[in-house]
């Protein structure tokens, strides 16, 4: 047994155990680490935020003369007007800009990747079982997502089939992700029993 003498390894190991102790029940050690985690991430976010303001706004403006960047800086500052009752309405402007950007980004990616590419993937010869499942499956799942009509009759049969197909796909995804999570868990155990306690190599 070759227990680590590194303070870093000890802290990481004890924090790991404290977090994992939540599996048993909520306890003071978990609460301590929970607050530590939230606090550290707040500090980290503050440093990152300052880094972004400095590198993406202040330096390009002052050094490179890109004064157009003053617009996002002003929009950012306007977010804080919500703390002043008379000016609070101003904070809605940057929020509206962000929401507009978000909606635009969502639309631009959706049509190409989620509609056109899906349709193209279905333009196959129906000469194999795989291809038939792909095409019929796509129509069935699409039928499930029609909201204006009750799932009755032919639409009901098709949508019901789509539901079963989705569950099969979700089951496979669940299984593969659980396997991935197990490997993460094994990685933590190797850290505890190897790097920390030196019981395994």
């Amino acid at each position: 047994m070759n227990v680590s003498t590194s303070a870093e390894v000890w802290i990481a190991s004890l924090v790991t155990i404290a977090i994992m102790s939540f599996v048993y029940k909520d306890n003071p050690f978990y609460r301590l680490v929970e607050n530590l985690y939230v606090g550290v991430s707040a500090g980290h976010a503050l440093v990152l935020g300052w880094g972004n303001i400095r590198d993406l706004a202040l330096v390009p403006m002052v050094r490179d003369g890109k004064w157009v960047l003053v617009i996002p800086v002003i929009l950012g500052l306007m977010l804080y007007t919500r703390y002043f009752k008379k000016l609070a309405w101003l904070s809605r402007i940057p929020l509206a800009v962000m929401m507009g950007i978000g909606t635009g980004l969502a639309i631009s990616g959706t049509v190409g990747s989620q509609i056109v590419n899906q349709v193209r993937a279905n333009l196959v010869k129906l000469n194999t079982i795989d291809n038939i499942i792909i095409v019929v499956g796509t129509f069935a799942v699409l039928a499930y997502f029609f909201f204006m009509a009750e799932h009755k009759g032919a639409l009901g049969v098709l949508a019901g089939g789509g539901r079963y197909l989705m569950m099969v796909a979700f089951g496979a995804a669940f299984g593969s992700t659980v396997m991935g999570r197990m490997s993460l868990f094994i990685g933590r155990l190797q850290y505890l029993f190897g790097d920390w306690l030196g019981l395994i190599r």
Partner: protein
Amino acid sequence: MVQGRVFSFWLLVVLIGSMLYGMWRARKGIAIKIRRIAGLNAIEEAVGRATEMGRPVHYTPGLGGISAAEATQTFAALAIMGHVAHLSARMDVPLIVTIRQPEVLPLAEESVRQAYLEEGKVDAYVPTNIRFLSNQQFAYAAAVFGIMAREKPAANFLMGAFWAEALMLAEVGSEVGALQIAGTAQLSQVPFFIAASDYCLIGEELFAGAAYLSGDPTQMGSIFGQDLGKAIVALLMLAGVIATNMGSSFFSTLLGK
């Protein structure tokens, strides 16, 4: 026009047209009905259960922001949250909202406060129940676990965009005995919500649910428009499959433009 995006552009025009048509129909007063979605019908039951048990309701509008591709899920989650806030105010049950993205906080505060105001219960609105926890994914998740373990909500709503923390959030909710209603369009996380929640809104059901609960004719019309768009895409796909099997590459070429 950029090669490879021409067809996408015209399809987008058609889809926007179908949405506008749906909204126009709704504004003209043509009734729009949508099929029953089990998860939506269970919302009132979940809040009612919290009232009977004397325990709070927990709601998270997901971990997505409002300026990325997941923004639409956050908007839908906030719309559903407004409905949950109305029910919570009406039934006098505390509503705890946990937030990951700082820019979502003012929207959530406004939405919940407005709901309490409309229910005539503005005095019952507790600003500290709308809690920004951390913008770091797992720090947020750890803090939500703690809140759920200590405050034991009787109803847990997980709506919006989620990533690797999805199963853990749903698992803790299940552990404290909450009736859970989840909904996300992150298809990689849907399996976990299906496994660990009582009800799950899958993909587009989240958006349809938000529109349905809002009761806003324009939003309801957008569901009609979406269905119309889906029918157009389905017809396009059907024609493409038939043409391909008859040896024509017309649709493959068309979609590649």
